[in-house]
């Protein structure tokens, strides 16, 4: 008994010392990973969410085209999140619904419901880099952030608007990603994303995503009302406008299966 207590007394300062020196020698990679973990950690506990998403697609001549999508997602503690998206506009795809079970580190399970045929179709989740609904957002830009999806490197601190940001480089693990890297600005006060620069497979700057009008929900979860994606190559852009965010609505696994896909209206 006594001996044990003594040992612990002796060990404790050693551990503290070790961890202190460790953080002192923290590499840029370790710091990048730590920031990612902190970002993910700070948003845990949102349970479930529903929201309306409007996409405004603009071509280089400024012509607009609109997509309206209803989103539902469910937080999963020991796996990736589940989500169901229902399309309202354009009208020819009205009632089309998309169900996704994401799995960090492996392929997601995805189904598409085609209302004209009443057909539920399992689809390949391999298509990460393709444009979502003809927009400047790729599928991979819209999936939930999971730590395992990237490796990291902290670059620097930099001011971003009124905030102070960490600037971190993220390298996609998935060989099918359309990017070599993303450079991400995360504010130090609330771990909110402010900006992402996307570098294509040839490592040249392709797109910039900026986040605006953050609001806090349940006193904890920050969500932007607006995300703007600019494609530097094509000069096209897409606004993603979020409205009617609701958390803790009581959704469960029963709302995310192939039967709920067919209920989409």
């Amino acid at each position, binding site marked *: 008994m006594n001996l044990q207590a003594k040992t612990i007394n002796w060990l404790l300062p050693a551990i503290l010392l070790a961890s202190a020196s460790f953080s002192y020698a923290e590499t840029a990679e370790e710091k990048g990973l730590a920031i990612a973990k902190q970002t993910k950690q700070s948003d845990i506990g949102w349970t479930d969410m529903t929201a309306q998403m409007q996409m405004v697609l603009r071509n280089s001549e400024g012509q607009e085209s609109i997509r309206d999508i209803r989103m539902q997602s469910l937080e999963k503690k020991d796996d990736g999140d589940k989500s169901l998206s229902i399309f309202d506009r*354009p009208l020819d795809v009205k009632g089309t619904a998309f169900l996704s079970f994401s799995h960090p580190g492996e392929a997601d399970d995805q189904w598409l419901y085609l209302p004209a045929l009443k057909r539920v179709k*399992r689809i*390949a989740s*391999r298509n990460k880099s393709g*444009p979502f609904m*003809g927009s400047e957002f790729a599928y991979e830009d819209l999936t939930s952030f999971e730590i395992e999806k990237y490796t990291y490197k902290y670059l620097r601190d930099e001011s971003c608007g009124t905030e102070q940001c960490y600037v971190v480089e993220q390298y996609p693990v998935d060989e099918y990603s359309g990017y070599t890297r993303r450079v991400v600005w995360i504010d130090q006060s609330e771990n909110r994303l402010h900006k992402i620069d996307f570098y294509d497979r040839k490592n040249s700057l392709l797109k910039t995503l900026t986040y605006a009008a953050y609001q806090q929900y349940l006193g904890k979860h920050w969500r932007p009302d607006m995300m703007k994606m600019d494609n530097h190559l094509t000069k096209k852009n897409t606004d993603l406008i979020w409205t009617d965010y609701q958390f803790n609505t009581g959704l469960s696994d029963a709302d995310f299966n192939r039967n709920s896909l067919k209920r989409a*209206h």
Partner: protein
Amino acid sequence: MSLHRGNQYLTGLGLILALTAPTCAAVEFESYGKATTELRLFTEGAQFTDQSYNSNTSLSVEPTLFWHWNDNQDSLSFKPFLRIDQHDDERTHADIREFSWNHQGEDWELRSGIRKVFWGVTEFQHLVDVINQSDAVEDIDGEDKLGQPMINLSFVKEWGIVDLYLLPGFRERTFPGKQGRLRTELYVDQDQALFEAGNEALHTDFAVRWNHFVGDFDLGAYWFRGTNRDPILQIGTNGSDMVLVPYYEQMNQFGFDAQATLDSWLWKAEAIWRETDTQRYWATQAGFEYTFYAIHDSNADLGVLLEYGWDQRGKDANAIFQNDVSIGARLTLNDAASTEFLAGIIHDLDYGSSSFQVEASRRIGNKWKVSLDGRFFSAEDARDPLSTLGNDSHIQISAERYF
């Protein structure tokens, strides 16, 4: 004709709804739909008498009325359909595609009324898809279906989804009339239809289906007992005309479908075992789809498909896919207008005949979609079911307006 029977179900359904109608909860209503104009230009003169035209115009409209209440636990959908055809009186027709009340429980769902159900995974033929009758006068691809009255109870369990179907009443297949093109040499006289069942089209059918997914694999199996949706066409007379008379047998059918979704590969297989008074056989449709993503560093994807269809009855089969290889390609530009191109060829290894189809479609603005289709048939052997379409190769232009 068949609409009368539909009406009985409608009245029944109206009663159910009247009884369960919400007293306090707010009912939300939504309506939308589409109207289509279609022009078919045939490349050759007609093969049979009464078909003496080379172009045909047709209009169709399909509105949807949708109510939901009780926090989305209950909904009612009504989707009538109407087509008006320039030449073919049989193609001018109306149907109730959907008039259905849906009630959702914790892990179950009850769907009652006229509905459409799709089963299966393959693209060129929908072998296991048996619940709804084909609205064959609409198109030759078998994808247009007539609304089927049903009570469908669906359970979601850890080990899969189980669907029980009670199908009161049978819908007869529609066929092109005397003036229709894309038909058999003798036209089908639906008014003389014969049935094995004593209560004819009022026979109640039954089906049970299980489907589940395990990792990358989606699986389904079912048993169906009731009226065979595929009629046997017997020679008869209508006045001085020789005609075909449909005969609907009773059948027992087991069906299986599976898809493996592995990276860029989709491996698909469907199989049925069917037993009627006159025949007992296996048939399958199986193949793959492989997608090349972001071809040439563009946003476009190219999918290539290969499927094989086999029927144990061989040349005796009244099916098109008795020994047929199908090859297809799907090019999706992934642009704002959702531009898509499809091409497919179905080659019959027994008769050496082929049918070739190309399709191009895109959205215009937010409410219009236009498509251009071409279908070309080449069938020399008169014993081949496809040979009656030998002169019916055509180009189809259609414009869909969504509202």
